[in-house]
């Protein structure tokens, strides 16, 4: 049995009476790739917000390995080892692609520790590797604002890879992508499998099939089912709530 990387225990949030996430309990193992499925409003993104500290929970705990990180400040959770990609791609648009990654490669978070020039040889190698992995080597000196939508998404993935967190949260990494771009994204994500623990929120079923190991289905803020693609496909409760009668296709 692999060690649990992320443990969520009875997590709830309350938006003035509306429980967007209600008593969610789940465990994600070290090195696992977990997909979160669910209809709009099922609480997928809210769950990510709770894990990454954007939203504060009202009850329940979140553990990163054995550390209780419930309701920490965002940058502290990030430093503890949880990286997050947003639904709307966000990168540093006025900096070049290389500069973007160099910022992410910065090991020390404080102002005064960074009052020095250059990011070091180690960072340069790391950045070169990541550029290769996300396929933006040729665009390294381009200002991020001029990247295409797909390239921007990959750059944001690159920021996470450079940061090298223990757990990567991906919120709809293929939103707005063409089929070819989606495929390339799945290659990048598959490449990360094993090295990082990954949690993905995704709607694109083709993409889910390409990457998924285990799936957790959320419905109205609660965990409805958990299992592999096949088990989820055949789960009657899931069909009823989310997939309709046609199954995953």
């Amino acid at each position, binding site marked *: 049995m692999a060690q649990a990387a992320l443990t969520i225990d009875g997590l709830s949030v309350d938006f003035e009476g509306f429980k967007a996430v209600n008593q969610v309990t789940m465990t994600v193992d070290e090195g696992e790739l977990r997909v979160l499925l669910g209809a709009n409003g099922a609480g997928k993104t809210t769950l990510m917000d709770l894990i*990454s500290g954007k939203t504060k929970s009202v009850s329940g705990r979140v553990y990163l390995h054995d550390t209780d990180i419930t309701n920490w400040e*965002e*940058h*502290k959770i*990030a*430093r503890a080892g949880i*990286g*997050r990609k*947003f639904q709307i791609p*966000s*990168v*540093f*648009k*006025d*900096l*070049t692609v*290389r*500069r*973007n990654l*160099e*910022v*992410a490669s*910065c090991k020390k*978070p*404080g*102002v*005064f520790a*960074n*009052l*020095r*020039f*250059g*990011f070091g040889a180690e960072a340069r190698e790391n950045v070169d590797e990541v550029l290769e992995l996300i396929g933006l080597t040729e665009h390294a*000196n*381009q*200002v991020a604002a*001029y990247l295409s939508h797909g390239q921007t998404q990959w750059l*944001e993935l690159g*920021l996470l890879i450079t*940061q090298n967190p223990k757990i990567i949260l991906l919120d709809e990494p293929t939103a707005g992508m063409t089929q070819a771009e989606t495929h390339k994204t799945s290659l990048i994500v598959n490449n990360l499998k094993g090295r990082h623990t990954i949690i993905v929120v995704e709607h694109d079923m083709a993409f889910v099939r390409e990457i998924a190991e285990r799936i957790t289905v959320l419905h109205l803020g609660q965990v409805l089912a958990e299992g592999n693609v096949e088990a989820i496909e055949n789960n009657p409760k899931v069909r009823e709530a989310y997939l309709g009668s046609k199954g995953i296709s």
Partner: protein
Amino acid sequence: MLTKRRIEWAMYAAFVVLIMFAPLFMDPFWLNRVAKYLVFGILGVAVALSWGYAGILNLGQGLFFGAGAYMLAMSLKLASPTSLQQGSDKPVPDFMLWNAEPGAPTELCCINKASFLWLPFQSQWFGVAMGLILPVVIAIVLGLVVFRKRISGVFVSIITLALVLLVRLVVIDAQPITNGFNGLTDLGWFKVGDLEFDPYIVPTYYLVAISLSLVLLAARLLVETRAGVILQAVRDDQNRARYLGFDVTSYQTFFFSVSAAIAGFAGMLYVVVSEFASPTFMDLTFSITMVVWAAVGGRSSILGACIGAILINVISAKVSETEGFAEAWKAVIGLIFVLVVLYLPRGLAGLAHDFVDRLAARKPGNGTQALRVTDPSSQAAE
């Protein structure tokens, strides 16, 4: 790509050489004037740092400028000959006597209820130290409150704007120790050892010119550090930076404070060359004028904002003294601003950058996408 960086540093060097040789061509009157404009150039650097690099549009930069100015002016007021002729063996500012209650002792400690605050300013270097410390302390307190609450954009501008007006009112109201809206006038000269900085002599010009050169260099180097790059990342996307593990508040507060320190420093130099400090430094128009300088010069270029400040002031001086424009010169300046914002959103510095890019593109096999591709180091200066 490397050539572009070299051209940039060459521009800095050319600028420094230019201001160093300027005294050869000027009479004392213009020398003093240009020294004031160079002080405004320092203010331009402060604005570029906070607006261009940190993304914080501070509409109350005059607060820091004024704080620096008043701190040094208090010391220089006590060093003024008139302060020593008020019938006490220790200096007492003349305006305190004019307003003293009958029977009050002619002593700085107790001529009025708050005059003791002036006591440490008998040392000129205390005034100098406070001219940096006070703006920085205000900036840190303000920064920690505002940035921790994640207030950003136009709301920061409104808060800073309100604050500078508030402080201006307080300064005018605290008449017994600030001389109200008259400000502090009739000041002594700034002294270093035996050298007295008479505002109309060449050494005073060099005091300002060398200060400006050092501030330019320091600010430019600062934004090229890792922290400077991370600051720009914070400016572009606060949230992204936060989720990469950076404490956004501390970056914003740090650079906001540096900008405040530079503005305070400029305030002190202004007192040295103009021999007064007044609440007009904290007028709304002045703070907004600084922003205009930076916008015209190019807010995301340290040198650009500095040149913008100097250029606009030289133009204002010339235009306002041209017959026929004596009344309309403010409209002329306003027009320049509108035209720049409409047609040169990156200011004169942006224009210079594009020009250099075009030159680079003309060379065969060099930068085919010159307008789009810029190397990471020069990006910092754009």
